């Protein structure tokens, strides 16, 4: 029996169930406790698990992220929340030089079971410092796992896998996906890392889309199917480190055409990496120009109309599909 819940509820359920399951799990971050996070994601958890499990921190991202490392290294399973992913910059030294490195540089003797949840994405007029998506930065740091799912079911299963694993995970949630409903299995389940999900089958073209762009890609694919009879296959990698290249290559082998979609800035974005790897490994499958659809290289502006111009929408994806089929 499947239920329909929102992405926000999926995160809340995953956190609640893991807090229940393992008393080494703690949540920490600004406003994560009494307020239940500004988006309501952690709502009710402090009331249920109390001060020693769901911990409101002072505004000290570098400090509490570093402390999560020390707690993780000595047996806890901390889940850190960075209220807006833009502020993960404040904790970068701890993430890049300590959390990602401690296991390797100490000879594999230190486990760092730690999750950093960070809401990403444009929308709602929160402008340049509350809208960014930095996933590609973290894929560039060996030692981290990077998870960026798009649906309620994937978010719940992958967050549980992240918390139960023994590696540091950067877990990106899209703020604009919080209200999106989807079916989730009943009961306890996890989803392994490194398994992309084919969200829609198609024979004409492969769209690889990340995070919220999965939903835009599905909307574009439905329109292309209904209006033009073009059948796009939509693939959600779900985890960016490790990346499931095999599923994408199998799809490319079938369709011979490729569009990659992500919301963050185009230059050095994750789309560049996906496209490069697929072209390098799947060059012989390609019958047309692969296309990237990405955010523009500009800070996110406040104005509603300008904000809308920065990020891809389904029409951009439809246009890209036409060019890729050209």
């Amino acid at each position, binding site marked *: 029996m499947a239920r329909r819940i929102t992405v926000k509820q999926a995160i809340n359920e995953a956190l609640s169930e893991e807090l229940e399951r393992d008393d080494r799990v703690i949540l920490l971050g600004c406003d994560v406790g009494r307020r239940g996070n500004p988006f309501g994601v952690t709502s009710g958890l402090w009331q249920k698990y109390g001060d020693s499990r769901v911990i409101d*921190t002072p505004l000290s991202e570098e400090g*509490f992220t*570093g402390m999560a490392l*020390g*707690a993780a290294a000595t047996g806890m399973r901390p889940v850190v929340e960075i209220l807006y992913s833009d502020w993960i910059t404040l904790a970068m030294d*701890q993430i890049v030089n300590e959390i990602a490195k401690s296991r390797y*540089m100490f000879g594999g*003797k230190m486990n*760092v*079971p730690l999750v950093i949840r960070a809401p990403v994405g444009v929308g709602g007029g929160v402008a340049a410092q509350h809208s960014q998506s930095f996933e590609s930065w973290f894929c560039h740091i060996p030692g981290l796992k990077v998870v960026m799912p798009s649906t309620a079911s994937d978010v719940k299963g992958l967050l549980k896998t992240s918390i139960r694993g023994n590696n540091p995970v950067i877990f990106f949630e899209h703020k604009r996906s919080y209200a999106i409903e989807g079916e989730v299995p009943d009961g306890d389940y996890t989803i392994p890392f490194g398994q992309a999900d084919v969200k829609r089958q198609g024979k004409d073209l492969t769209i690889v889309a990340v995070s919220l762009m999965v939903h835009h890609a599905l909307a574009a694919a439905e329109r292309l199917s209904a209006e033009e009879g073009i059948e796009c296959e939509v693939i959600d990698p779900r985890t960016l480190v490790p990346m499931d290249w095999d599923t994408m290559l199998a799809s490319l082998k079938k369709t011979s055409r490729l569009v990659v979609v992500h919301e963050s800035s185009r230059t050095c974005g994750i789309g560049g990496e996906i496209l490069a790897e697929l072209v390098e490994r799947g060059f012989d499958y390609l019958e047309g120009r692969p296309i990237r659809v990405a955010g523009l290289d500009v800070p996110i502006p406040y104005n509603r109309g300008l904000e809308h111009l920065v990020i891809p929408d389904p029409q951009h994806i439809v246009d890209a599909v036409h060019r890729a089929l050209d």
Partner: protein
Amino acid sequence: MAEKEFEQMRKLLPEATLLEAPPGLSPERQFEMYRTMLLIREFEVSIPDLWKRNLVYGLAHSYEGAEAVAVGACSALEPGDYITSTHRGHGHCIAKGADVNLMMAELMGKYEGYCHGKGGSMHIAFVEGGMLGACGIVGANVGMAAGCAWRAKLRGDKDVTVCFHGDGGTNQGIWHETLNMASIWKLPLVYMVENNQWSISLSYDRAFNVPHIADRAAAYGIPGVTVDGFNVLAVYGAVKEAVARARAGEGPSIVEAKFFRYVGHFVADDQRYRSIEEANRWRIMDPVKRMREYLVGSGVATEEACREAEAEAHAKIGAAIEFGMKGTEPAAATLFEGLYAD
């Protein structure tokens, strides 16, 4: 010790105090502290030659002259307690009981080393012994330390964490952030400041506008004390008190051991930023020599026992060098070992 010599010391370091064993510290344990100091000293003085011979690669930061801090602080700990380290971590490892053979192998990049040749001097770690790793980013280790203490608090564990860091580290933001959190949550943590008065080429007076780093404790509502960092018994006494407070659930403290880095910042530092002659004047404070004079002068140990201990430390480091040189180069197949768990 001659009064005149002590006066000279006080001129250099107004915080200097005469060595005096706190109540309850047995003669055997005092002598054991001396032996550990000797082992650190012998380890450190062997490194420049090994580095010049290309047996030790990369950077190596000497703990020579700082022995009183690591040994004083670690002697105040119980076996289950934790420490974190700095980029200058050899002394912390040895004081926490690490095997000098495995340390030397690590400095030589050998697979037998504590980090299988992945860390070297700057990331040496004795994780299994509660030494949570040397850290090449100055000040960054306080996160690890405060988090370790946080775990103890949250879990009701009885261990205490001592966070070693230098004066330079106390000017990083994370030092202040974690001090605040450790203070509001009353974490079992001791901020062990090794104030050697130099952040590479930046002297204390150009980096601070307070006479003592421990003065900053007032900003976080916790105790802070400054002691003679060349005096192992003074460091021991101060840390013991701070550890007792931490273990009793009363929260963190700052213990500032003030001394002077009279060696270069790292093995090949030409010290062009200061007068080497002036730096060498501080060698009259040599903490190993002072401990020896105290032990013999107070009758805790004989000259002969001290000489034996010195010969023993020298032999141990000689054997460690042999052990390291006989170690195996890590195979290429080990390159990705330890990157991820599972």
